[in-house]
């Protein structure tokens, strides 16, 4: 694989407020999901809420993950508000 990118997906309120469903970003070495979140939050504006008061859930390759979990090229990383189904 020569593809050194990862996919970031947003759902529900975050998807709407960021006006973004999906991003393709370069995959940095030794990066965690928390690093990715901080980098996105630093874009400012609505993105700042990714490190705001409201909790942001993380999934890596469709499994729940903690901010310290590593992310690498080819991964699908998703950020979303706490779930409210049922």
């Amino acid at each position, binding site marked *: 694989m020569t593809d050194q990118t990862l996919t970031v997906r947003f759902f*529900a309120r975050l998807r709407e407020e960021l006006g973004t469903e999906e991003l393709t970003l370069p995959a940095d070495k030794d990066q965690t999901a928390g690093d990715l979140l901080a980098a996105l939050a630093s874009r400012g504006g609505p993105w700042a809420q990714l490190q705001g008061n409201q909790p942001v859930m993380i999934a890596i390759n469709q499994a729940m993950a903690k901010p310290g979990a590593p992310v690498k090229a080819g991964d699908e990383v998703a950020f979303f508000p706490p779930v409210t*189904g*049922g």
Partner: protein
Amino acid sequence: MISIQTEDFDCAAEYAALRDSGAGTGAIATFTGLVRDSGDKQDVSGLFLEHYPGMTEQVIAGLIEEASQRWDVRKARVIHRIGRLQLQEQIVFVGVCSAHRGDAFAACEFIMDALKTSAPFWKKELSEAGEHWVEQKASDVARGEAWGK
């Protein structure tokens, strides 16, 4: 079996399918969730439900697997609707077949409680005043956590 769908479901048909789970089944517990008129706000006229395709099915499959390890589960069925739903429409169905009622009740309630706090669905309440994304309830989290491991 797990279905995530926009269309409605027929509880009678689902119950009939659950009954067809072998002579060892002595109890069937089912739960159906409906759209009600008050949630975070009053005068709710409907809901919009979003989900994370793929992850949703994986999470629910994991919950059924966990229920099967903790209780006698001979057959389990979960249906969750997505998209736009009107007042009083059916949202979710959980059905469990067990040898005895205790296991059927517990497994059904566990799957439903755990689904609410771990399956990636999000509800938006619609009303004349506008629309807003529902906030996760501390009481739902507490119910989910009460099942422990």
